[in-house]
């Protein structure tokens, strides 16, 4: 196989060929088993690469990375002092990812920069939880409906119960994707959240399956989940999502 052939096949695997060239590759694939084998290998490598790098980076985030982001912009010399002063004792016991989420929550809450006092997510003793406006939507909306939360077009994408009976809902609020699970105390704990490129627009809702790896990993971490259909969601809403 020439370098050109291989390049074409590689671009084909990525869906990067224009129509005429794509059709030409497909015709070649039809009659050449070696080409098909190479394509299968490219795809297998791709999938393995993706999986190999998917789950590793959301845990054990070093504090120093978050400290960079918490540094006050005006006084770059006092590295980290602000961060330490404001670090609540409870955070010391949280995994670094949760700390990262909480930091993000602080930013959202406007602790560091001028921002509206209301926020999607809030830091609490239990970690990052949905703010009241988002919680309201998590509590009462069915999947697919589009509502406004603090100016961000928001939708529920998926609802399920985890193996232990915990109710969870995957949502997209503006460009933030997240997974929230209802706690016995009533709060919607944010198990994962991430900034995304996609956002909810008129007539367009990003697919749940397009969620960032961190969200998918959090869902995978829930074990054998049971997806809820529309009836299941209505029952959950009626019961306040209690186990």
């Amino acid at each position, binding site marked *: *196989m020439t370098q050109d052939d291989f390049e074409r096949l590689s671009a084909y695997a990525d869906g990067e060929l224009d129509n005429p060239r794509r059709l030409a590759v497909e015709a070649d694939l039809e009659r050449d088993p070696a080409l098909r084998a190479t394509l299968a290998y490219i795809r297998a490598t791709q999938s393995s690469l993706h999986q190999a790098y998917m789950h590793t980076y959301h845990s054990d985030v070093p504090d120093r990375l978050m400290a960079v982001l918490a540094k006050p912009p005006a006084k770059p010399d006092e590295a980290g002092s602000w961060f330490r002063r404001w670090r609540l004792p409870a955070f010391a016991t949280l995994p670094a990812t949760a700390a990262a989420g909480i930091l993000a929550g602080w930013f959202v809450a406007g602790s560091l920069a001028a921002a509206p006092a209301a926020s999607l997510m809030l830091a609490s003793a239990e970690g990052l939880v949905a703010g009241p406006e988002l919680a309201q939507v998590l509590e009462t909306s069915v999947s697919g409906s589009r509502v406004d939360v603090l100016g961000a077009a928001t939708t529920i994408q998926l609802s399920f119960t985890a193996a232990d009976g915990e109710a969870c809902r995957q949502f997209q609020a503006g460009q933030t994707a997240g997974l929230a699970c209802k706690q016995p105390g009533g709060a919607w704990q944010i198990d994962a959240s991430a900034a995304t490129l996609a956002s909810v627009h008129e007539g367009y809702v990003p697919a749940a399956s397009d969620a960032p790896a961190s969200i998918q990993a959090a869902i995978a971490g829930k074990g054998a989940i049971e997806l809820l259909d529309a009836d299941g969601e209505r029952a959950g809403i009626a019961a306040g999502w209690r186990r």
Partner: protein
Amino acid sequence: MDDRPLNFRAQLALMVPKLRRFGHALTGSADAADDLVQDALEKAIRKESQFEPGTRLDSWMFRIMQTLWIDDGRKRKVRRDHAAGLAQLWPTNGEDGRISFPARIAITEVRDAMTRLPEDCRAVLALVTIEGFSYLEAADALDIPPGTVMSRLARARRLLLDLIDPPAPSGSEP
């Protein structure tokens, strides 16, 4: 108009895992990746005014990381630490056991092969196959022509196939 409830730093905070992943693919070492991410975050905060709202922040960060990585001389050190770093980084404890793969390629084999690729190949491969960037997006992030993305990617894949399975069908078929 602006429907992003997150400010610049919050967006960076949420992006940290992604940056670490790219850093790892680029440097081949988790420790070097975290150093690189830290430097890139510091640079990003200093240069925030240069970021154009409405463009991709992740692309901007990847470009900063790539530039920092090329500019400074830590490559040599990392190469030395490489083997040790890999061992602690990627425990083969079956964390991915539940995920099914379309073929028999072991993840450990792919990870190992990835670290043996030339650096320019790694960056392109990481953006397109791991982050799901299009060729145009990858070209923009790495500041190279789209044609170069295509040829580098093909070269990376060909090397990968050879590394993973020397008599792979990418060789001299009739």
